[in-house]
């Protein structure tokens, strides 16, 4: 069963390569699929390129989704990272 958690991109530069890389690093720990969803589009959280292509400037509302509850920890870590503005 998938779990979804909403978040807003708050860092000034948006979801760029460096911030996407941080997400991808966390997503790599997951056993199952991890996704970032913006409106109708979704991107694999494990792919920096996919994340950049999702185009999320500051203020974008997104949802982090995990395909399997066992990856809950990853979900929380990613949400926290986004909420904290990637420590920028």
């Amino acid at each position: 069963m998938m779990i979804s958690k909403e978040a807003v991109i708050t860092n000034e530069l948006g979801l760029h390569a460096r911030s996407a890389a941080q997400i991808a690093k966390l997503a790599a720990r997951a056993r199952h699929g991890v996704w970032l969803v913006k409106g109708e589009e979704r991107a694999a959280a494990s792919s920096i390129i996919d994340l950049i292509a999702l185009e999320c400037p500051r203020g974008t509302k997104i949802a982090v989704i995990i395909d399997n509850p066992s990856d809950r920890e990853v979900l929380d870590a990613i949400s926290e990272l986004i909420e904290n503005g990637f420590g920028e």
Partner: protein
Amino acid sequence: MSDKTTQEIVLNGINASPGICIGKAYLVDKEGVDVISRYAIPKAQVANELKRFKAAVKKSRDELRAIIENMPEDFRQQINILETQEVLIKDKLLYGKTITVIEQERVNAEWALKKVVSQLKSIFQEMADPYLKERASDVVNLADRIMRNLVGAKQINIGQIDKRVILVAGDLSPAETSQIRLEKIKGFITDKGGKASHTGIIARTLEIPAVVATGEATATIKNDDLIILDGVAGTVIIQPSERTLVKYEKRRMRYERQKAAINRRSRLPAETLDGQSVKVLGNIELPEEVVAVINYGGDGIGLYRTEFQYMRRPRFPDEDELYDKYSDVVQVMAPKPVTIRTLDINGDKAIAAENGFNEANPALGLRGIRYCLQRPEIFRTQLRAILRAAVFGQVRIMFPMVATQREVVQAKEAVKKAAGSLAQEGVPFGEEFEIGVLIEIPSAVIMADAIAEEADFFSIGTNDLIQYTLAIDRTNKNVAHLFRPLDPAILRMLKRITDIAHQKNIKVFICGEMASYPIHVPILLGLGMDEMSMNPQAIPTIKQMIRSIKISDTKPLVEEALKLRSAEKVFALLRDTYGDILSEFNRTDNGAGNVIEEKAKGKGARRKA
């Protein structure tokens, strides 16, 4: 070429290396990575193609890691970018997709990568956010790195061509030239550059004809175009007619014959008509070039540029590796001298460049002895290697980019320490070596008397000395024609250096490009140069020039030249005095005769009265 109604196109440039060749064009694109072509991979070879791609990715990753590890903490911003690339490299939209394309379409890895990257580029292109759009460059940079390793690993593109080609490029950096398999190259044509640019130096060293500063070669020439490259006249003819081809084929053969005739006499010593013998040495960049120096009758190595071992690699070479290279050269050349210039890292010849180490003005930046004194461990490694190689012959250590006496004192201190450490470890090293200074910065000329107190010899590096004295970037086409060795300011500098060397009783050599033109020989002899060093290919011509003149005539000539007020007038004086002798060289080596005239050609010659 699609059209059948072919029309000859003639491009004019600077004749950077003499010779004539006829062949097919091969374009190198802006990034220095060869134009990528697509070809099918047989099913059985797909696994191998995948392996090739993965190896290139791994190599790129290793390179990034090494660069990151070598980078000081202050470059945090740079490190961030590189660390992102490091993660990015295995991204499924780049790595995974390229693999899928190779597997499904059965195409070469280069093509697959190129395809994936251009798709990504178009995705990024559509993005509205300018900052995020800009980030696409990270992906592109990374893809370029992988591509370089892919192409370099197998050198598939150049290796693919079984015929030798004429290379056409915007400009070639030393790192790029080091990637090229030179035996496949008949000639060089570049848009930019000047006579003393890196392409020109490499071309002359390897005796490959070259025309540089054509301005528009890459825009005009297409891959596989038939072209004639006339490195004597400095012209390029694209899609020549049958008649032109025949004419140039004859010219080419005549040129080769004349060159052979001069070369046959090259082993004989160079003695002036009045019996003064002059040593003529060779400049080298690769250890392999020692053979050329010997073949052309060189009396030693007057300049061994040592940057090559530091280029296009993630790490600095270790002592043993350097020792191997140096001892090769010293052994082959012994008992003749080998002058080793210590690391002259600068903007385009360096690992630093790959480290993202950017300076707004590298010619005035951290390079040469300045760099070595700041990085004692790197300097020490090289010095130890040189000292160990000195066991095998006559070694001279030469410091580049010296601006002050203090730098020489410090560098000598470093040599002493390196020797001390070898002695302590019981490693054998040569104790008989000379230490000299490459005079190439105006302040070193002004302080030559002080610097002479610390040196066994001076060697004048005219390329940089002219650049710094006249404030001319010789690779800048707009001002390259003002790069004049015969400028009175340069003559006065040479005079000062040679006078001081004689007074202080140390030897004085010249190792700049200036020494490779016969027309300069009377001036250099008149100034009392003990040795002249040049690209190996110029040695026979210079020796013949020396044999054609009397040293007793050259001293008054120098006195007279020093009274003149312009490079044109000095040139005219030399032409009037030695025109007959020089005309013999002009046929075989255009670079010989009229340095000023050629440079002014195509730039709208301005002659002052």
